[in-house]
Every structure is written in structure tokens, then in C-alpha cells.
């Protein structure tokens, strides 16, 4: 696949760390927006976060371009986290 050295390291880090960030963000988002009690919504977010993680890891190695992958993981992570917290009114 021609993935070597720093490119490979960057993609692996993106998949592990960036994927984890996205998974957490998806969980936080669902925990904030689902129309159910706070605890239940956080639980659903938790259940779904792992699916998001798998998706992120696979997507990383389909795209295989470090910069694009990092941005594609970090930007949605920030948006989803902020969105989840704002919509749930957790931050003023």
C-alpha cells in the first residue's frame, strides 16, 4: 500500500486518537440531543460511540491522507462536542 514512515505513523495516530475523539464527540452529541433523560441519553451515546470509532478507523485507511484525515476527524469532533453541550444547555 506504500504506507511507510511518518505517513503511516500519522494515520495510525489519527485512527487511534482522532477516532477516539470522534467517538467521544458522537457520544457527547447524542447524550445532549436525544429527547430522553440525561442519564439515558448519555448511556445511548456511550453505546453508539464504539460504532463511530470503528467507522472512523476504517475511514482513515480508506482516505489515507494524513492532513485530510486529521481534519476530517478533529473538526467534526469539535462541532459535535460543542453542539451536544450547547443544545443540552451544559455550557452557558
Amino acid at each position, binding site marked *: 500500500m506504500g504506507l511507510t514512515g511518518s505517513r503511516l505513523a500519522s494515520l495510525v495516530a489519527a485512527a487511534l486518537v482522532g477516532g477516539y475523539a470522534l467517538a467521544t464527540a458522537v457520544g457527547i452529541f447524542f447524550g445532549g440531543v436525544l429527547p*430522553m*433523560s*440525561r442519564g439515558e*441519553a448519555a448511556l445511548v451515546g456511550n*453505546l453508539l460511540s464504539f460504532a463511530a470509532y470503528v*467507522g472512523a478507523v476504517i475511514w482513515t485507511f480508506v482516505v489515507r491522507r494524513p492532513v485530510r484525515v486529521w481534519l476530517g476527524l478533529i473538526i467534526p469532533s469539535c462541532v459535535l462536542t460543542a453542539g451536544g453541550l450547547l443544545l443540552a444547555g451544559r455550557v452557558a
Partner: protein
Amino acid sequence: MTLTSVGKGISDFLRAGGPPKADGPPAGGFRQAMSWLHTWVGLTLGWVLFFIFLTGTVGYFDTEIDRWMQPELPQAQIGLDSTDTAEVLLDRLRVEAPGADRWFLTLPAGRHQPYPGIFWQGASIKAGASATSGELPVNGNTGEPFVARDTGGGQWLYQMHWRLHYLSRTQADIIVGFATMFMLVALITGIIVHKKIFRDFFTFRPGKGQRSWLDAHNVLSVVALPFHLMITYSGLIFMGFSYMPLIVAAHYGVDDEARQQFISEVFDPPGLVAPTGESAPLVPLDDLIAVAEERWGEHRIRSIDIRHPGDSNARIIFYENIERRVSSGGERLMFDGVSGKLLHRVPPATSAAKGARDLFVGLHEGLFAPPVLRWLFFFSGLLGSGMIATGLVLWAVKRRQRMEKTHSLPHLGLRLVEKLNVGTVVGLPIGIAAYFWANRLLPVASVGRADWEVNLMFLAWLMMLVHAACRPNHRAWIEQLAIAGFAFGSLPLLNLLTTDRHLWHSLAVNDWVFVGFDLTVLTVGLMSGWAAWRVWQKRPLIDAGGISIKQGKSAQQLPGEQL
């Protein structure tokens, strides 16, 4: 980095897998990418995954192994009268744990709770408690604590699959969490790569080197695919709050108190109250047991949880046995601990979300499974372990065949993988056999006995890794399979020599747990011996390494599968 390229990144994210652009990564289609990911994500933590799968699989018989490892205990006491047993346990708690915050009575409700037992928290040593908190199995007939050899039993063996025994919880969580995640990615990419899932199900071409290993890997993966997916995802969910702590923290706060708040909101039964500090006598349990058994049926109370016994705010929670439900939660009844009034009836799932989690957790644990289904769980777990093992072997066989074709020397990575494969795929089972041997051979009175059983398991495994490193690869397989054959196959004999509960005795008194254990290890032993003989038959003319590769018969590289 311009905004357009950010936009492109996001649109690519949505399309997930469009063809690479002109300035994109090296050529290689979607399937190649998936195939590459499948290979490396499977290999990287493959041996850890094999350990997790195998020890977890053995865990489907955890309490049966417990009982084999404590031959001093009588046969199970399932079906004792609930009222009498609760009385006996309560008396024992009054002796062992006066002044406790919590008394917990375990009734002998089924295979996963074969003996009565007690558990307590926050007892007062001043008032004469034997320990602040503790746990004891109690003989339901005499009320005396059981005395049996010190062992981790099936519980430690099965807990290894997420605690990794020697590591701290945090370290183990990180390793097991990532390994499980890798497993899930390997499964999904494996499905994507695998075009002809049903045709290959019926395809097995033995004796064709790499092709045969691929067929075996496919069959083992496909035949129990729903199990593999279920067990992996539910494993993540099981530990979900540890693996993804920030989700709850974002909505509740980062401290322990916030976390407790979440847990009590989602999991605790409603109506728990703080103690008042005023003492009041605990209501007799007879009437409450009658109410619970009226509702659930005789012998269907799993446990009785008494919060703040002796306080005017005491609460008593009855848990329904869960053997008739797949979900991990049963119904709960909460009584006032002084008046005996029924305060709440808590359904198994208090919300859809908790219901979904309970279902996954229940499927993972398989506590509900009656014997036939339990064996099916066990075999599915073995298929999963076999899937991982064949995947690891396939990686090595493929590279060795390629290497032999080009007459080059095996590189360090290939040799390392080959050694780890033998030393783990056969070496770990030998370690498990050593655990059982240690249980019978270590002196009953020795100090730190339970710890040493485990130490010997890991020492035996380590010895097998060293053995694999020292021996030619093909010889290592033969020798270790033979050792495994002896170690498992002779366990019934060891049991005969060291206890009075040998196979004939067990058969005579219908002790199916002991019969099952002896026959299972005997079967494992015979199969290992048979495998050793088969590999010996297929030994290459020149003892070069890779297993079951016949000279001049290496399979050709298949299109689309260059990994």
C-alpha cells in the same frame, strides 16, 4: 490548508471511500485498503486477542471450574428452602458483620450460584466484625462457612480476559479496550473484504498450504459471525463507561461524585434512602420471601440486599433470578426494612437504553444459557479463538511461502510471528492445563496458594514461548501439541490420584459437573494428541519452518488478496 481542502475532507468523510484524487495516496482500491487494514489490525494485538477469547470462552464454565478446583466442597446446594437458607445466612451475618451498612445474601439459585453465600460492607470491627467488608460461601445446611483449598478457580481464569491478572485496572482497561476495538475493526473489514461469504462457507480445500489456512480462517469466522460481532461489541459496551469516560463526564462532571450520580440515575433502584441513625429491628424475612416467591416462583430469588440493617430507614431489595431472561437485569422488589411494606417494584429495564445495554451484557455473559446453549456459547468462543489463531498462522504461512518461492531468508518479523504463534496458540492452553495441575499438586496448606496457581499458569506459558523460540518451528508445533495432549489428557488421572472424586465416582453419584470437566479435558487432550500426530505426519522433508507446507505444493497468490 485552505477552506476548500477542508471542505473536500468533509465531503470525503461523508462519502467514506471515494476514489483517491490525483494527489492522493498510492494506487490501491477500497478492497485493498480494507484487506491491508484487516491484516495489520488483526496481527498487531492478535495474541492478546487470542488470550482474551480463550480465557473468556473457558469462562462460560466458570462456576463448574470453581467446583472442580475445590473438590472439598459438596455437590451444589441448589434448591434449598429459601426461608431456611436466608435465616441461616442472616445468622451468619450477625456473627461476621455486626454494624454493617450492607448485608448481602446470595441464595443457591442455579449453576452460577451453586452455594449460599454472604457479602457485607462497612461492618464495625469494634462491634466484633471479622472484617469491615468480606465475602463467604456458607453451607446452607449447617450455617458454617465452607472450608476449601485456596484457589482463584474458574473466576480468576475468566476474569483474566479483561483484567489480564497482573496489571492494574487502568492498564488492563487500556490494553483490552484497544484490543477489542481492533477486533471489531478486523471483523468489519473482514466482512468487507470477503466477497463470497456463503460460497466460502462450503469451501474447504485441505492440504493446500496457504489456501487451506485461508479456507479454515473463513469458515471459522463465518460460521459464528453473529457471535463474534455480538461478543466484541458487547465487550466494549460492558466496559463502556471505563473506555469512554468523557461522554458521561461531559454531561455530569468529571469527579467521582458526578459519576456516582449518573450510575444511580441509570442503574440504582428508586427509593434508596440515607440511614437516620435511629435503630429499629429488622423485619423478619419470611413474609417478604413469601411475597417474592409468590410473584416469581419457588427458588427464584437470586439474592437479598439489605441496606442499613438495624436502622429505621433500612431497605431490603430482592433480586429475581435471571436464568429465564437474556437480559442481565431481573426484576427487583424493594421493601421497607422495618415495616416490611413493599415500596417499589422495579422492572428489569427501567428505560429502553438500559434495556439495550442489559441485553448486550446479558448475551455477553450468557448467564441465562441452559446447558445446551451454554455449550453452543463455548463452541462459538472456541471458533472465535480458532479464527484468531488461523488468521495469525495464515499471516506467517503466506509470507513463508512467498519467501521460499524467492529463496530468500525469513526476516525477523516473520520468525517472531511464527514463534509467538506456536508459543501462544498451543502454549497458552498448556498454561491453562498447568493452572489445573497446580490446583491439584500445590500443598493445600501452602501460603499464597491461589496466587501460585496463576503464577504457574503464566510460567508454563512463558516456558512454551521460550521453547518455541529455541526449536525449529515445525518441531515446536509437534512437541507443544504433544505436551498439550499429555497435560489435558492426563488431568482425569491426576484427579483420580489426588481426590476421591474420580470419573467413576462422579458417574455413580450423577455429579455432572465433575463428569463434564473430566471428559472435556480428556477430549481436549485427545484432540491435541491427534493434532500433534497429524503435524508430525506432514513434517517437511527439510525441517525448515512453516507448518504443514508440503514441498512443491504452495498455493498460488490469489488476485485481490495480496496483503
